[in-house]
């Protein structure tokens, strides 16, 4: 675990540190800005699917999907990230008692 933490931290730090050093050189590159704008949404959706693949059973997959949907709807309704997260968490935990 410790080597993994160090490797992960080193990569993360490099990703944050190097751009600060070269900031002025590339800040006006439009293609890079466009590329950066496209990345997050798709990567997050891939990560959602990744977590769904980890489900142990069809029942757990159903609970995850239900809770994620509730979480997103509550977030969109309240405009509050945390409220959405907690709502999904509650739905997921409580549905575990039923299925």
């Amino acid at each position: 675990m410790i080597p993994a933490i160090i490797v992960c931290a080193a990569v993360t730090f490099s990703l944050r540190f190097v751009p600060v050093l070269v900031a002025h050189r590339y800040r006006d590159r439009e293609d890079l800005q466009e590329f950066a704008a496209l990345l997050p949404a798709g990567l997050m959706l891939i990560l959602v699917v990744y977590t769904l693949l980890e489900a142990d059973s069809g029942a757990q997959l159903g609970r995850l999907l239900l809770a994620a949907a509730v979480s997103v709807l509550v977030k969109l309704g309240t405009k509050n990230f945390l409220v959405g997260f907690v709502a999904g968490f509650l739905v997921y935990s409580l549905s575990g008692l039923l299925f």
Partner: protein
Amino acid sequence: MNTEKGSLAWALRVTVPVAMGYLPLGMAFGAYSVSLGFAPYLAPLTALVVFAGSIEFLLVGLVAASVGLAQIVVTTLLVNSRHIFYGFSYPSHLLHSPFAKVYGPYALTDEAYALISSGVHPTTQRELLLVQGVSHFYWVFGAAVGAFAGGLVPDSFDGFDFALTGLFSLLFVDALAGASRRVAILAAAGVSIGVGLLLPRSLFLLGAMLCYALLCVLLVRFAGSRPGRSSGRRGHGSATAAEGTV
């Protein structure tokens, strides 16, 4: 209470939105890490050293699945690649001491970036580092509480399994709302997920993400938006999308 700009009380006040995200998610991370079988001290240690949120959830999962360091490097590169673009508008000119010059970029998380570039606008090294340091503390503290108290949660309770799905679902919606080419993004992500599903399970994340990054490069190169459109607005959309990301 002294809430003058640059005081600790000021920093605690302006970072309330970050605390609302970092404390519960940090606790979820700590409990999740322990639920995978890791010693409790490893969660706050990871939180302190890596300080990058979603990759930490993935990291403990990958280590638990005994993947190699190479896959951890590539996954970290891909998941945190978005951080590359924060440096471009980070007020590094405020940093003077050697420690600050390293710690500032080191603690440049999505939330810190969102706060610094949209809400707080620090004007001194002290203000900038206070905001980032206080945020760092929330995350490590949350992970410690989750790791040490989460062990008291019975094995039959699997609620923390939702943390990752919930986090990424909400960040996905945020990111999509802030993006300008939603159809292209959804199509590219759909194709990438399809490609990933064709691969062995252990290569899904890597394969799908590489495919998506490649498709994004192609989208920019061959189907880029018309020159007349403001890139400044897209840049802003990206910063908005990052809000709420850990």
